[in-house]
């Protein structure tokens, strides 16, 4: 896997060098991982290993034109899903589903006029809603609320305007979520859903955002499934120096599933997470309480039919997960860096509202579970500062080399996008800092 990544990066680097080096930024990542879930849906402990989050990200710019792509190869490495007790979505349960091969592929334009910065992006990617994608946050395991707190892998058109400390975004997209890594979006449904997000930047390194989304029939590709009305409020803080990093995020998210306009199920999530870094060691903690709709499983207890055969569920379960993570200082080998980490999660579940017939003891044999993970975050190149925002929606950063943003030598060889103040500021800071804290 590592060799493949190097080849991929090298190949892209050649292409970059033959074009305009200052306009292209490339990153490749993969996480060899072992997870033990004790117990899980089989009512016993399972230990599995795989390569998760194998991605290649590319940013390119020329003048005011922008290009973004993220290729995700989880369909090849975790087709059965990654053990993630409590996780659900896209036909997987207690396993995180593989993401689409084309995770992001967008073209856009960005420019400033009289202190107003504006951008317009179109392609496949994130709708302007909720918080950053979990892949760009300090933990390897996704929170249970992924499908309540982000809307992604849609055919989107997203406009954003930033003026001073205020960012406004509006997007339209197709409501259907992917059926599988290689599935095609329902292009004819483009425009049946929309979302908007308002972000305030009251302090340096801090932001508060509120967003709303109307998503049509996300779980039935041809339409006529339950619609969703989603709301989210997020407060985020991230401050880095050359040797330290402090990060915190508080999130409230709610999804109302609606049947022809009437409320069918209400799902709510409350999440707080934070991380600190000193001497290259990153320690993080997360606590989350999220409602999960229970569905009829197929013969494989980790899968549910997609689409379901009707609009009913088995009840709502309420998941409380406490996660602790610590990672050793990054080690560098050529253009590849590696950061070993371990994560431990204590998980408990209780009946939600309505409880239905779901019984955690019947499914797991207990209401309390553990999950242990160990892995190494391999990376070459510079990751997006954020995932889920485009162009003018990216807040300026006073110190960019934070979180998942790499500060290794490879990123110095792969300069950031030119003429993009939102990222240029961060990249400049990033290069100046050469932080030991990037994940």
């Amino acid at each position: 896997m590592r060799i493949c990544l190097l080849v991929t990066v090298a190949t892209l680097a050649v292409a970059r060098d033959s074009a305009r080096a200052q306009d292209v930024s490339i990153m490749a990542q993969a996480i060899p991982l072992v997870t033990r879930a004790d117990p899980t849906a089989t009512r016993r402990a399972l230990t599995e290993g795989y390569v998760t989050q194998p991605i290649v990200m590319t940013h390119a710019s020329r003048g005011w034109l922008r290009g973004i792509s993220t290729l995700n190869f989880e369909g090849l490495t975790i087709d059965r899903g990654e053990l993630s007790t409590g996780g659900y979505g896209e036909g997987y349960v207690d396993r995180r589903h593989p993401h689409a091969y084309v995770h992001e592929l967008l073209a856009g334009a960005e420019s400033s006029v009289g202190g107003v910065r504006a951008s317009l992006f179109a392609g496949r990617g994130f709708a302007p809603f909720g918080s950053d994608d979990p892949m760009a946050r300090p933990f390897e395991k996704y929170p249970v609320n992924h499908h309540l707190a982000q809307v992604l892998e849609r055919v989107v058109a997203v406009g954003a305007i930033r003026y001073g400390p205020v960012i406004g975004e509006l997007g339209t997209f197709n409501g259907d979520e992917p059926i599988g890594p290689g599935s095609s979006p329902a292009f004819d449904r483009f425009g049946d859903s929309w979302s908007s997000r308002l972000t305030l930047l009251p302090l340096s390194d801090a932001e508060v955002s509120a967003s709303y989304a109307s998503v049509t029939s996300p779980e039935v590709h041809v339409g006529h499934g339950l619609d969703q009305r989603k709301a989210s409020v997020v407060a985020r803080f991230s401050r880095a120096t050359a040797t330290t990093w402090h990060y915190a995020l508080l999130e409230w998210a709610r999804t109302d599933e609606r049947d022809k306009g009437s409320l069918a199920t209400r799902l709510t999530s409350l999440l707080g997470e934070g991380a600190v870094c000193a001497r290259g060691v990153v320690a993080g903690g997360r606590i989350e309480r999220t409602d999960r709709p229970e569905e009829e499983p197929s013969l494989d207890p980790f899968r549910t039919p997609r689409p379901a055969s009707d609009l009913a569920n088995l009840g709502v379960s309420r998941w409380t997960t406490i996660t602790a993570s610590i990672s050793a200082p990054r080690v560098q080998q050529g253009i590849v860096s590696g950061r070993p980490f371990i994560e431990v999660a204590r998980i408990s579940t209780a009946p939600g509202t309505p409880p239905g017939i779901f019984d955690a003891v019947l499914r797991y044999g207990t209401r309390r579970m553990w999950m242990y993970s160990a892995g190494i975050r391999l990376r070459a190149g510079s990751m997006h500062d954020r995932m889920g925002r485009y162009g003018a929606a990216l807040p300026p950063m006073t110190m960019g080399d934070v979180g998942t943003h790499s500060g290794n030598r490879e990123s110095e060889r792969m300069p950031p996008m030119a003429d993009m103040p939102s990222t240029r500021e961060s990249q400049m800071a990033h290069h100046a800092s050469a932080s030991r804290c990037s994940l």
Partner: protein
Amino acid sequence: MQLVVNRRFAAGALAVAFGLTACGLTACGGDSPSSPGKTDTTGLAPASCPGVNLGPKPATLSLAQSTPATLQVLGGGAETARYTAEIAVRGQIAYTTTWGTRSAIGNKINVWDVSGNTPTLLDSVIVSGASTLGDVAVSDDGSLLVVATEFSGGSIVIFDLADPKHPRLLSRFTNSDTDPGVHTAEIGRVNGKLYGFLSIDPLGNLSHARLVIVDLSTPTAPRAVFTKVTGNPFVHDTFIRDGLLFVALWDDGMEIWDVGGCGSGASPAAPRVLGGVKTLNGHVHNIWWYHDPNGSKRFAFVGEEGSGTIGSTSRGDIHVVDISDPAAPKEVAFYRVTGAGTHNFSVDEANGVLYAAYYNGGVRAIDVRGDLGTCPASQQVIDGSTNLARCDLRLMGRELGIGLTELNRTIYIWGVQYLNGAVYASDMVNGIWKLTAAK
């Protein structure tokens, strides 16, 4: 099951006579009439289907409002390891299927002795390669038991009932068109030949819901004769009678197909769509074409299966459709239970009583004699979005009885069958109940 009337074919007429006799001697099982009703030779022969006589216009009844009676519970048979699904009763034997995953998966057919007040378990049969057995039907001659399987690679499993207490596996039918699951399988004769009508679940974004018709005349070697992509997004059930097939197409409403009853040359291998109606709210799940004791066959009852949480909530009305013109059926009345939704039906046609499984609302008995589409304005409700005026069966004083809600326990009634003065109900949570019929 009722046989087809096709006056063009002497063989068909003989089959009808034989079938009526058979049904009269031993009541039919599954979603089939409990009584054949009187043969009617006068009345309406619609131009779109001259082969079927819809009988005289039913009389207008004026009923006094009264408090619905309690359908007395005679006894219950417990199934606590699995969730119970559909029920079919013939003679002294009831067959119930199982669904989803409880402490065990829903792959078992229970055989009950219902000769006494309390059903007692006689035998059970495990069906391999299935996580849900969502439907069960007994052939009109009592020789066959047909069970539908879901998730994944759906099928129908056919059992020999030479010994009704101990079904013996005869064959299993599956092909690429039955994937990922057969949601329901109704059986009935057309021109003397037994067919199965299979409603197939949709699969991902590659395959829409389908209806598959299978020739069961050689039960050891079932043979598909017709497949059609239909339903939006689901096709959940069918009702076959007199050569007309009523198809429940969810948000595309109800369609009436000529499969041999109209004398047009159509057949199960080459059906002809006569017409359809989109009932209010869509979600068309199941249908019963009612033949009243006076020979009138003007009304079909349509079950709306809205969203719900199994064991807790449900929603969905019974819609009454006037099919006097099968090419243009129209909705004329409805029945609503606040806080609960309907599922499967059984009709005591001799006495004009519709029994409806109502999930958390128990069992409902409704007087369906006479003209259901004519009522004074005080008994009408006008839909705000369509301006459709419909008679409210409750306001018409037609609510006769309620069963099982008086029990101080969680119930969730999937199916119901009237037979010989008793009502049998399958309860997802508890098993099987036997109740007195409405007076």
